[in-house]
């Protein structure tokens, strides 16, 4: 076998992290990166509750469960290294076409203009922040940042759902692998939520739907303490603690405080060749969204809501051509004071198991499958109008992946797929107006990275 030298992302990570090892601490100069995701469900465009909601609620995963028919992202980064050893980094990330939230809907447009109004999926700034490091009066390895960003994100490999982040506007200090950050987010979505697309009141911005009676914002804030990179047990441990609070709310209606804790363990694939990551989190109050997943989506919890979230996922290198991605996730929600969460007595729990084998036929062609099983357990079947308190969901996706070799700009990939989905609950419909609880969808997904 020929000798191979792997220039891993470790190089990029070292350069980006401001490590004292590299002479240049950040990539000097301008860099423009991008991503495009295009999804066509053959014959019919789909609403978010026919796609993304199934994935958001840990019932299904795969190409068919994306709410974004065309999503484009550009990131502009500028790095500078100074003779004193200091460095600076500016990051601007823009996105167009993310409909997963609010009143989002997949909508296949022609080129006539006037694509959207008062709605999701517009040109948005995902991140815009400045980071400065190793200033002459700092110790080496110390950096500060301010702006809008999603800090310390993690998501599952099959569900692609984020379970850890602090996404909002704020600032922080980082020293090597540990830091403190303060991040704030206003609850709800910026897009309007009304019937049939009309705004209730044209003079009121849709960003003002969660104000208090005086018109003040009810902003949520998370103070993050994190300590990463503790080497032990053949892997690496990361620790997070988030103390959350919210202004101008009445605790009897909405949670005013929250606490989230997480331990993350990364290593090889449970002793085999590959990689894996396991996270255990606890959350209370505002931190009910998986404990440490903080953002504008944390606004609907009750003060006594409690969340326990466990996830473990990774990729095994089975052979040179076969890789297997796996994910097991368990999320339990309870409220001992109120006695129910989302009208489910005693709370609810969601278990998700997914497998994605990927076989490389050659450098330009792969065969991929995504198989998922999920079980959602509620207090009583009648709480949600179901046949049984435990509902099983099954999906299977098969996709040939056409990709190109090293020299193509953007390394594009086209993936036609077929997905079969079913559940044990007759009344659970995957699409609006469907007559069966099982369904088959065909589509094509394309992605490009540069």
């Amino acid at each position, binding site marked *: 076998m020929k000798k191979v030298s792997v220039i891993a992302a470790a190089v990029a990570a070292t350069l980006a992290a401001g490590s004292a090892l590299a002479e240049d601490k950040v990539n000097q100069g301008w860099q423009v990166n991008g991503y495009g995701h295009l999804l066509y469900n053959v014959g019919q465009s789909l609403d978010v509750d026919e796609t993304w909601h199934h994935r958001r609620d840990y019932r299904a995963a795969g190409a068919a469960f994306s709410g974004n028919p065309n999503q484009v992202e550009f990131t502009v980064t500028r790095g500078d290294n100074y003779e004193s050893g200091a460095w600076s980094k500016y990051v601007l990330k823009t996105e167009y076409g993310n409909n997963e939230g609010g009143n989002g809907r997949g909508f296949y447009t022609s080129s006539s203009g006037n694509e959207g109004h008062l709605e999701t999926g517009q040109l948005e700034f995902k991140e815009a922040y400045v980071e400065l490091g190793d200033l002459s009066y700092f110790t080496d390895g110390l950096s500060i940042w301010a702006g809008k960003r999603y800090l310390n*994100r993690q998501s599952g490999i099959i569900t692609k759902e984020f379970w850890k982040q602090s996404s909002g506007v704020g600032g922080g200090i980082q020293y090597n692998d540990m830091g403190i950050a303060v991040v704030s987010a206003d609850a709800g979505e910026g897009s309007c939520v009304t019937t049939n697309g009309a705004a209730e009141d044209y003079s009121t911005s849709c960003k003002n739907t969660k104000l208090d009676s005086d018109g003040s914002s009810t902003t949520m804030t998370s103070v993050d303490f994190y300590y990463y990179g503790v080497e032990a047990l053949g892997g690496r441990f990361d620790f997070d603690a988030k103390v959350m609070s919210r202004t101008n709310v009445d605790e009897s209606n909405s949670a005013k405080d929250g606490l989230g804790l997480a331990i993350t363990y990364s290593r090889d694939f449970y002793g085999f060749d590959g*990689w894996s990551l396991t996270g255990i989190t606890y959350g209370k109050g505002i931190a009910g969204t998986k404990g440490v997943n903080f953002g504008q989506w944390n606004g609907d919890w009750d003060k006594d809501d409690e969340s326990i979230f466990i996830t473990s996922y990774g990729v095994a290198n089975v052979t040179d051509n076969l890789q297997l991605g796996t994910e097991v996730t368990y999320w339990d929600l309870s409220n001992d004071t109120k006695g129910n969460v989302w009208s489910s007595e005693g709370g609810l729990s969601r278990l998700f198991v997914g497998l994605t084998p990927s076989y490389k036929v050659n450098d330009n062609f792969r065969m991929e499958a995504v198989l998922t099983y999920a079980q959602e357990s509620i207090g009583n079947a009648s709480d949600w109008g179901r046949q049984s308190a435990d509902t099983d969901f099954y999906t299977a996706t098969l996709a040939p992946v056409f990709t190109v070799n090293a020299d193509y700009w953007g390394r594009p990939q086209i993936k036609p797929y077929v997905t079969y989905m079913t559940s044990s609950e007759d009344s659970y419909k995957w699409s609006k107006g469907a007559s069966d609880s099982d369904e088959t969808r065909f589509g094509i997904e394309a992605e490009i990275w540069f």
Partner: protein
Amino acid sequence: MKKSWFALLGAVGLLGCSSADQPQSSIDTTLVQTDVCCESLVTLPWTPLELNESLEFSINHNSPVWDFKTHKSYFSAFKFNQRAGNVELTIRSVMAQGEVLQPLVALLDVNYNVVKTIKSSEFDVRFSDAFAKNRYEKQLSLDATKTPYFIIYADSSRLGEKVVVPHPAKLRAEKNGDPLPIVTDPSYFISTNGFIHIDVESKSLSGVNNQNRAVVRSQARKLSVLPETQSYYHTSIEKAVQAGEIPKALSLLDEAKALGIEGAQEVFVKAVNAK
């Protein structure tokens, strides 16, 4: 901050004995058989650079060959502009078409002595973005009056080995907090051939000290001239003067001086006086 996690991930990333054919050029037997281009470093084909210039070119079997003490290699040789003082030189060896040249850079002083060699391990790896490909890159701040010459050539210590860089989807996942996707990383064979891109930016200017340069020139060009060549020039100068072709004689005299032929000046003067 995710250094060690990614070192771990990198180490177990998608490797494999590729079934792809190795490009012929990566183990170039013709290089071994090709003679060196020139007699000495002085007579290498030096490409003169402007004060500020950007060049893209290939180093391949069409390039000249030189025997750098450790190995033979195709090369490109450059000379900074005479008016340049401090320069910033950026050298990039681009990974493309399945192969990459691991660059070595020799810096030479005014007397064509190699004073410094930049090793390929000193180059940074930069990943592709919208405007640039994966590449080795190095920025140098040099004094062009002290090191006016440089040569770019190939490091052949790891010829034929594969270099694997992360797929851009993995780089995006790292920045985004997404898990590493299952994709095939691009790989390139280390080759004697490559695509090079250089950027020269002169930060300051230098005046030229003519006296120094004349001295340097005569010292540098100490060729060992054949006796036949010397007598040819002496005879030709005499004949040209006798025939009244003074411009021709002066031209021959200049040539003789450039080659360092001794006595040409005296022959000319003697011939003119004899007329």
